[in-house]
């Protein structure tokens, strides 16, 4: 009998067993160099058109935010068209050479403001999300890691926060601020996200608490802090990350709503789309383009983040099989 490889089918000693198994299995461990879960998810995502659209939009937005200062023809606070502004007959100067979108009611170049507006918009969206996330992480981790009365306490707090509709809470928070600024907007929006993030995190943390691999780490004698930080937290982050992308989108929209109600950042030298949209209210009838550009940008960017978040959610969901 011609053997392909020198194998024995009977194993009698440890050495033999080990050698045999090694040969048998060596080829089995695919030499892909340690592809992590995320890499796997990414491979699946790459083929999802929804994700690609979302990613492209988001990437364009971030890129714009970075390069807009060089891209914008004017300083967004400069008022090159102020001489053309007349409250009644020409409150909003129209397009003219050098000002493709025209100006705003303060004689500032609209194009530059829309372009540079991406920066503050990104800052608001991302910071609000990060702060909300940080708060949610702390509360959620406390609740999820300790369980018991800590969990009960945290969850009651979260319940109370959740029982007031989010945007209402944001409205009141923004109104509470002694000196409204970009920060009050960011914080008002962020606070609303905290209970959502903490519930999400707590849910997956609790699931992790009872999971086999956490039990395994416990059995191994790993220190409790290390279990929480190295095993429970990283494995609970998936849904939270997805949620974050969605929150960036809602934060931008919420910021617009706050501005619409006059609770936004009063200092408009550094433009922000939501604020521009809010400020355009009184020109809506006659000069809708003032609202159109920031609103359009918000919609596109929010759509980008949402599409990306949704498809990420789907890709990371173990139940979805595509």
């Amino acid at each position: 009998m011609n053997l392909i490889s020198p194998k024995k089918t009977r194993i009698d000693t440890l050495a033999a067993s080990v050698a045999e198994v090694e040969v048998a299995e060596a080829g089995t461990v695919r030499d892909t160099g340690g592809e992590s879960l995320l890499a796997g998810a990414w491979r699946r995502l790459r083929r999802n058109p929804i994700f690609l659209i979302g990613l492209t939009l988001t990437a364009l937005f971030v890129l714009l935010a970075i390069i807009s200062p060089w891209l914008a023809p004017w300083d967004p606070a400069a008022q090159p068209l102020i001489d053309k502004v007349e409250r009644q007959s020409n409150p909003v100067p129209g397009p003219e050479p050098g000002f493709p979108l025209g100006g705003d009611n303060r004689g500032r170049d609209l194009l530059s403001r829309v372009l540079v507006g991406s920066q503050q918009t990104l800052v608001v969206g991302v910071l609000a999300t990060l702060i909300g996330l940080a708060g949610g992480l702390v509360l959620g981790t406390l609740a999820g890691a300790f369980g018991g009365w800590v969990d009960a306490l945290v969850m009651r707090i979260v319940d109370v926060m959740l029982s007031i509709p989010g945007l209402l809470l944001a409205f009141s928070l923004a109104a509470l601020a002694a000196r409204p600024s970009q920060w009050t907007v960011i914080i008002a929006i962020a606070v609303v996200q905290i209970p959502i993030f903490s519930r999400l995190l707590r849910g997956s943390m609790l699931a992790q608490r009872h999971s086999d691999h956490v039990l395994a780490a416990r059995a191994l004698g790993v220190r409790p802090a290390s279990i929480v930080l190295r095993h429970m937290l990283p494995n609970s982050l998936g849904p939270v990350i997805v949620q974050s992308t969605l929150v960036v989108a809602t934060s931008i929209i919420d910021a617009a709503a706050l501005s619409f109600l006059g609770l936004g950042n009063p200092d408009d030298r550094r433009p922000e789309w939501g604020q521009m949209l809010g400020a355009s209210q009184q020109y809506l009838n006659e000069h809708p383009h003032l609202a159109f550009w920031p609103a359009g940008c918000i919609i596109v960017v929010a759509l980008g983040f949402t599409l990306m978040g949704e498809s990420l959610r789907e890709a990371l969901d173990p139940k979805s099989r595509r």
Partner: protein
Amino acid sequence: MSEPLLSVRDLRVTFTRHGAEPFDAVDGVSFDVRPGQTVGLVGESGCGKSVTSLAIMGLLPRRGNTVTGEVLFEGTDLLGLPATQMRERRGRDLAMIFQDPLSSLNPVVSIGVQVAEVVQRHRGVSKSAAMEDAKVMLDKVGIPDPRRRLREYPHQLSGGMRQRALIAMALACRPRLLIADEPTTALDVTIQAQILALLKELVSDSDTALVMITHDLGVVAGMCDDVNVLYGGRLVERGMRHSLFAAPAHPYTNGLLGSIPRLDAGRGEPLAPIPGSVSDNLPWAGACAFAPRCPAAAEDCLASSPPLVPHGGGGTDGEGALRCFHPVVPTEVSS
């Protein structure tokens, strides 16, 4: 010998997914089942047992696969039937029981309705008559207090009872062919024994043909008349259970038997596992898929794909079959 009720001829199921090579999950499988006969399909996880059964039932996902070959049921090719006619037949002519009794039952619909709906659908009787039938069926599969159970929901039943309910559902319209896909894997041994006994009894009572799918050779040994061993989507050996277990000819069958610790074997003998794992398989196209794990493999195994040839003592179909260039010599088998 009666005519086969179900005749699977050269069944091939190819999964095509964009971005991946087409993959033959089932690759030219043929077998017959006669009324009153129990035919076993065995093999390791992923060898294509479930796909075969789903293909027979026409239950494969709608997209991403192609099915070729023939599934003749009393001479009609089920694969060629339009979807509506197939729906008529499922549940009435051919029925199926699945592995996990809890997940296979709809959690929000009462047991009674789930049993009755199939009666109602295929016998065209009234709702109350269907319910009455359902009660009779539950009683028949040995569920105590069937009238109360009719109104209960799956989660209120124990595992064994759930599986009985599934069996009641499958048998409600007295199908002539029953496919059981690992019906007892999720159950405890003592419950498994109850269920298997029940199945045996029901089949012999009504002359139903049974296709038994399992990876548990013990179950096969006790249940089946004919055994088909699958490996990597192909049939590698077929035989009547006595001859097959007594003298497995394919190294894979032999290896499987050697891997199982046996309650009746002496202690201390180390097990003889098949080395490697399924992921070592070669494509069947130009070689023997099992060759990399096979102790008897030789060069020819890598050069061409061994054909399925008649072999040995044969099954009730008259003929056993084997797909191997270097069958195991009976004396080599150690028991």
